[in-house]
């Protein structure tokens, strides 16, 4: 009876769980207002990431490419960045922030992005765009390092580093959400509002679910402004919801500007949300209000109807973003379920030191495996060839075929969830998220019982 943390033994990947770093940087970039990133590399690095994001949100977001072709790969392509910045600024008068996001190809050929940015600032911006506020932000995200998760982390750090500026201290706190859904942001903001906390929610994507309006062109965009980013240096503290998606920036703010940071438990589930609101209270001195006690109670009430009757003992595999996977596993344990396999899709050396993983290793009283640098074959092979029995899969849509192939019910969670409608509207964090998740899991099991006619009569009198 043990919880083992292991690295995938095979080299290479059969069905990847994650894409590469530039995707994470691109996602962070669309959380910033008046910002269009330029991805310095081949066109596919942008075209497919834009498609991926639009598959998830059913929206389109603007990200540009420096369109590196063969000559650039041979002779260097910094001129492509110069041209791209010029063209972009000339045609998009509202753009103020342009992150230059590198890829594997331009990191290998060694294009000096920081040098180009200096040159552009001295020449193009000073001359052609004099008087216009423009910020160029270098974001180094070689695809052969880390994953989309670390790419998000690196980009958040790059933005904060670029803008954070010490002036008068404020009563605000910084909240770095990480790679979440609009539904999560709404939930977090509602907690902050309940506690009467003035917070800067960073890389804020709540309005990504944009409407069709009777006139005009209403597109979703990030809400985080340059002022928001500048002000991060003057905040009372920083709370990071996902340590691998924003932790670097929090550490930076702490070291450079003495802004204390709390890398919170990812607020998935009741217990982790309790920790989150406790951290908020500690940081701001604001009490936890009755309204949250009520919302927590509503969630507990809903969960009481399903947890020990239906969810207990159910064997779950969870994959995706590390903080989300860990948070879900913790919540599943609280729900009396058995997460038996956790798959983390990259090789971050920090996982072994993660206190949450250590706690699992010390306390889990059945066989659990946590595989890092994992791919989907780690899941499928165990089901197909090693007798792994599962009642439920939690993860994003790229794993949909495993669920279908082996008839295992699945709750879509994380990014991307392109094969289900509207999931981005719903939170998985906070008390509301806990309730929604537990209900989704129960409903998935119910549908499966009915579909397979497996004790479906249980629900006659529930």
């Amino acid at each position, binding site marked *: 009876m043990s919880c083992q943390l292991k690295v995938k033994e095979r080299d290479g990947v059969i069905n990847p769980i994650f894409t590469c770093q530039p995707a994470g940087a691109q996602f962070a970039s669309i959380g910033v207002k008046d910002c269009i990133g330029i991805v310095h590399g081949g066109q596919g690095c942008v075209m497919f990431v834009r*498609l991926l994001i639009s598959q998830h949100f059913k929206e389109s977001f603007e990200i540009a490419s420096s369109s590196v072709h063969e000559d650039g790969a041979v002779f260097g392509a910094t001129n492509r960045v110069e041209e791209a910045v010029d063209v972009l600024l000339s045609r998009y008068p509202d753009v103020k922030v342009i992150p230059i996001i590198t890829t594997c190809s331009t990191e290998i050929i060694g294009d000096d992005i920081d040098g180009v940015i200096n040159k552009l600032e001295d020449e193009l911006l000073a001359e052609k765009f004099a008087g216009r506020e423009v910020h160029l932000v270098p974001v180094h995200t070689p*695809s052969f390092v880390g994953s989309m998760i670390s790419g998000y982390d690196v980009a958040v750090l790059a933005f904060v580093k670029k803008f954070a500026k010490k002036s008068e201290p404020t009563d605000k706190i910084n909240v770095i959400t990480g790679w979440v859904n609009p539904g999560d942001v709404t939930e977090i903001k509602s907690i902050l509002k309940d506690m009467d906390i003035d917070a800067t929610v960073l890389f804020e994507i709540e309005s990504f679910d944009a409407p069709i309006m009777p006139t005009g062109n209403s597109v979703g965009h990030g809400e985080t402004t340059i002022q928001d980013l500048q002000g991060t240096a003057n905040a009372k503290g920083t709370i990071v919801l996902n340590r691998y998606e924003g932790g670097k920036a929090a550490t930076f703010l702490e070291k450079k500007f003495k802004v204390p940071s709390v890398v919170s438990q990812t607020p998935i589930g009741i217990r982790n949300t309790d920790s989150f609101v406790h951290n908020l209270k500690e940081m701001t001195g604001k009490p936890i209000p009755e309204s949250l006690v009520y919302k927590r109670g509503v969630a507990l009430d809903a969960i009481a109807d399903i947890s020990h009757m239906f969810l207990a003992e159910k064997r779950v595999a969870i994959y995706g973003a590390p903080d989300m996977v860990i948070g879900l596993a913790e919540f599943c344990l609280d729900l009396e379920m058995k997460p038996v396999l956790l798959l983390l899709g990259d090789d971050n050396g920090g996982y072994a030191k993660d206190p949450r993983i250590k706690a699992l290793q010390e306390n889990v009283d059945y066989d659990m495996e946590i595989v890092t640098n994992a791919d989907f074959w780690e899941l499928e092979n165990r089901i197909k060839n090693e007798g792994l029995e599962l009642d439920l899969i939690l993860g994003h849509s790229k794993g949909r075929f495993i669920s279908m192939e082996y008839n295992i019910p699945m709750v879509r969670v994380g990014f991307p969830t392109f094969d289900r409608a509207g999931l981005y509207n719903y939170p998985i964090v906070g008390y509301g998220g806990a309730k929604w998740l537990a209900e989704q899991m129960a409903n998935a099991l119910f549908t499966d019982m009915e579909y397979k006619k497996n004790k479906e009569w249980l629900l006659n009198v529930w």
Partner: protein
Amino acid sequence: MPLHEFDCSKVIPERKQHAVVKGREEDLTSCLPKGYLNTIPGSISERGCAYCGAKHVIGTPMKDVIHISHGPVGCTYDTWQTKRYLSDNNNFQLKYTFASDVKEKHIVFGADKLLKSNIIDAFKAFPDIKRMTVYQTCATALIGDDIEAICDDVMEEMPDVDIFVCNSPGFAGPSQSAGHHKINIAWVNNKVGTVEPEITSDYVINYVGEYNIQGDQEIMQDYFKRMGIQILSTFTGNGSYDDLRGMHRAHLNVLECARSAEYICDELRARYGIPRMDIDGFGFKALAGSLKKIGLFFGIEDRAQAIIDEEVARWQPELDWYKERLKGKKLCLWPGGSKLWHWAHTLEEDLGIRIVSVYTKFGHQGDMEKGISRCSEGALAIDDPNELETLEVMEKLKPDLILTGKRPGEVAKKVRVPYLNAHAYHNGPYKGFEGWVRFARDIYNAIYSPLHQLAFTDISKDDFATDKGFMTRRMISDVDLDDEVKNNTELREYTGGFDSVSKLHDREYPEFESQSAPAAAE
């Protein structure tokens, strides 16, 4: 020259050479936009890369192959599960994708050993699959791994496997089109002629440039089989690796998407003397003409005609039901490459739709030549469009529908223009006679969506009707229709089901007596 200058692109003067309006009595030589040039950085073009052109468009539809990309994981992830090319091999090629997962240490010290162990692991994981394609990516092209040598090594150690190498890194050319070219040539150079196929008919074709989107290939295969034609291989939708190694024995290459696959046809003509015949699988008139052309080539026009008669009798009344309701609608035809000329005239001929704009993301001037010649006066043709330009066009031309990709479709949605997925289709397949009716049905459903109308109402300002709890499509589409048409009992809406492909799997085909290859039939 009727060049078109976009307001949003005035600051990039060279863009003016990339858009034209087809004017009255214009000669193609004066109204061709420039095409297939390097992309303008920062323009927010819709182009992809040469890797995706090779791997994602042409390579991966092959159904019995382990498709492994040698590079960091992103290229593989990003090109996985974003297409609808099916296969009768339980969709193996859709479900599984492989990457060597190159990391920093491999960039520094080389990734050849990594690739080799990957290849072996992949074959081990899927012991029934004996064929593989290895795709180079930007990273491994730049570090210079000798992929061929590694694969030769493996093939020596594992004699029952065969591996194809495709060197088409993302940066190799202005767009995905460069990748189409590279994989065409690599396949004909390295794999064609390495298997001797069994010939079972007097009439043997390769079906080329067909990617089995939602089952297109299976629809066309049905017609060919009914004509007694042997399909030696399909390049590449629903295609089998070993069948494609025997392409050199066909009597005719029947080519659909000339943009992505004319290269291999031209090489097969030069090297093996196999003629190339370009066809259209889309549209009643165009498809009928194509089937007749193939029949004529083999001297079996009667068989082609019999199919056309049967299919037209079955489906024309349904196509015409839609035609009556779609006549005069304005449509922007904004696909990737070949559909601009596959669809421009067919939509006009068969459905009376007006194509007000065509564009191509990665097409060449030849595609524009064909596309412009096939659409009507006044059409705006755009090469390598970008986001602002497409918004400007939608604003000015106010089309009733655009045919484009998923993400640009989301852009259109926000300016209240419905879209159909031109690459992956909505409810396809769209090839074949029934497929074309499905396409008409999808266009009708998009344009006459009762909710679409509501998108234009500003409830805070406008007067609007409150006397209705619903509208049907026909309450909108039939308002101005003649009673004669409305009451016509011959015409009917589409009567096929959700799945128009699976029924073909159990179909029995006529046996035609072979003149020259009786023994081979056994």
